[in-house]
């Protein structure tokens, strides 16, 4: 959804500046300390890519392609290396973007209520992200209803309630321990009767290894379909930008239960480099929709692969 496109791009640059400092000044250093391109530089680049959580396979692939391209170009200037590497990295990201069915505001008006299910492991940042999404959709002029299907974690209700107030949207909650599916059922019914544009469903954090919790997720999905046949319209997997290779397993395991339509990568305002983005694009082909760059309600950014890479290189 292109809802956040109106956001000033400078904000993304700011948010990513620390990431950029680490990742690409690193690359520039690696390059500028050597006048002539050699294998050592590519080794250093490999180190930089791997320490960004890009993962060994993807890093190797990018380096391999960069190396091949450089030999072909026969140009080993710093500029050539950077632009070649940039292109290779872009190729990896665009690979997944092309798979995106680019839903837009028409989808929201024709699929009422437009239901977004948010899932992820514990501590990834689901609830905070829901708060930010609600705020942005509301600001974009949509009516939003949040369903609090995390009936497990202590005070999850209270936390989401505060976010709902901040975003100035309605919320449906039940007591701790209630069946999450029943919350979903009630939320969608209310949304239908009130002609709500967008429904956001927050779920309890669950490790993908917990089969009973994954079954619960399946049930939530089934119940959704019963109330609103086209639901869920989106299923977002929220992943912690600090995470390493396990994210790939998460994406794979959650995909088994429900098709994932997008990823939201959080906590990219630290020094973690979010290389996980490349990894997922290369292997899972699930597009990255948004990135979280802070704890404030406006700290959610539309993910744009080209701009993302450009911002990294600026």
């Amino acid at each position: 959804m292109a809802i956040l496109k109106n956001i000033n791009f400078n904000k993304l640059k700011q948010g990513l500046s620390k990431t950029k400092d680490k990742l690409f000044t690193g690359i520039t250093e690696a390059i500028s300390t050597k006048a002539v391109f050699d294998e050592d530089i590519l080794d250093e680049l490999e180190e930089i890519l791997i320490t960004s959580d890009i993962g060994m396979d993807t890093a190797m692939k990018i380096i391999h392609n960069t190396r091949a391209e450089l030999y072909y170009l026969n140009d080993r200037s710093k500029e050539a290396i950077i632009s070649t590497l940039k292109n290779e990295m872009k190729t990896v990201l665009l690979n997944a973007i092309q798979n995106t069915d680019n839903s837009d505001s028409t989808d929201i008006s024709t699929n009422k209520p437009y239901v977004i299910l948010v899932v992820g492991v514990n501590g990834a940042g689901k609830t905070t992200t829901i708060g930010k999404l609600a705020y942005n959709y509301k600001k974009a002029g949509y009516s939003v209803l949040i369903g609090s299907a995390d009936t497990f974690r202590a005070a999850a209700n209270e936390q989401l309630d505060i976010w709902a107030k901040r975003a100035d949207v309605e919320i449906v909650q039940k007591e701790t321990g209630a069946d999450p599916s029943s919350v979903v059922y009630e939320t969608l019914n209310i949304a239908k009767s009130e002609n709500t544009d967008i429904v956001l469903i927050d779920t309890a954090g669950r490790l993908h290894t917990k089969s009973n919790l994954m079954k619960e997720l399946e049930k939530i999905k089934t119940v959704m379909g019963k109330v609103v046949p086209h639901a869920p319209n989106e299923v977002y997997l929220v992943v912690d930008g600090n995470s390493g290779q396990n994210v790939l397993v998460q994406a794979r395991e959650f995909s088994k239960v429900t098709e994932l339509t997008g990823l939201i990568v959080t906590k990219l305002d630290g020094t973690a480099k979010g290389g996980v983005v490349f990894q997922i694009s290369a292997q899972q082909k699930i597009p990255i929709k948004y990135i979280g760059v802070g704890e404030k309600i406006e700290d959610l950014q539309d993910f744009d692969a080209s701009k993302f890479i450009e911002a990294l290189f600026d």
Partner: protein
Amino acid sequence: MLEDLTLKFDKALKKVTGQGRLTEQNISDTMRELRRVLLDADVNYKVAKSFIDDVKERALGKEVLASVSPGQHITKILYDRLTELMGGSMSELTINPTGPTVILMVGLQGSGKTTFSAKLAKYLKDRNRKVLLTAADVYRPAAKDQLKTLGKQISIPVFSIDESKDAVTISEESVKYAKENNLDTIIIDTAGRLHVDEDLMNEVKQIKETVNPTEILFVVDSMSGQDAVNSAKAFHDAVYFDGVVLTKLDGDSRGGAALSIKAVVDVPIKFSSLGEKLDSIEIFHPDRLASRILGKGDVVSLVEKAQAQIDEKEAEDLEKKLLSNKFDLEDFLKQIKMIKKMGSIQSLLGMIPGLGANIKNADVDEKQLVKVESIIQSMTKQERKTPKILNGSRRKRIARGSGNTIQDVNRLIKQFNEMNKMMKMFKSNKNRKMLKNFGNLKFN
């Protein structure tokens, strides 16, 4: 699976078999494989690099026993080194002997501080500490509600000042409150913070200076990636934490970040936390994380097996005894016990240097070992030392005593004599063909 890893190593080391020693050239494939394993497990790039150098140094020049797979050999070095690096043994929480014990929990957002604080509170309460939980996270919405709810579940008081946004004051007041109310342990749950957030890092420093904690625990998500070393280092530079807590270990992450943190800040990992139930907290076991990093699996038995196989001293003793005809039934029994520990008679036979390859096809019914063991155990010491004295009446007694038939006893003695005879021939003629017969040795 660790077995998979060993197999991969074996494959990479195929060309090493037959060569005398592990050398730089013949283990380079293995080291590449190891590098991949470590990086896939989220071990930091630099840490992985120095770790590999270290393992390589230890492996180089080691003799390759024909009986031991080079893969197992390397796996063993690897596993031991990993365990050693992660602390070797368990490390306990420090308790203040004179005053209240103050434990400060710090870490990034979403690492699991609040849940772990409650778990630790319950753990200490179960060990007769009088615990107070302090809600010093003034930023995350409903953080103190979460702690209060958890506190209620485990009947532990939670200190909070609802109207205050000052984490330092809250922490300070909570220690006072604990003293006044005769509580001896205070666990302060702080807000998750990024190590690059100067204001919040200053806040946690101030809390430290104000409450002077007995222990500062850095909570880290076991799913963390390469950047874990950077955040850990920044936190350590700021507050010098005393221990690391590894959370969410009930997932399938490999937890390599923990090794990296240990390597970079050299602080023991004290607890691991798995699951959301408040009693799922464990003292950290370095060996378990070692096997996790290398891939889950029953590492203990495999390593024991490897250890038994490369115990060269014992193998030499056995060889000496065999070749000097001093191998008696007592030794035989000892070996059987070892076999049982190892689970495979091939391993035992393989221990004899130079025999390994020929013994591979030995056809052994492992159940027979129990029988053999019981028979020998029914013998007197003298009978075991000098099997020659085993006449008909002695054999009958042994059969009765061990619950076997006299045929079983006879078979065992015949088997034993044949083995000794064969070893004698092996010694005198060096007749390599005999080894094949040895390989077809049957215990039934």
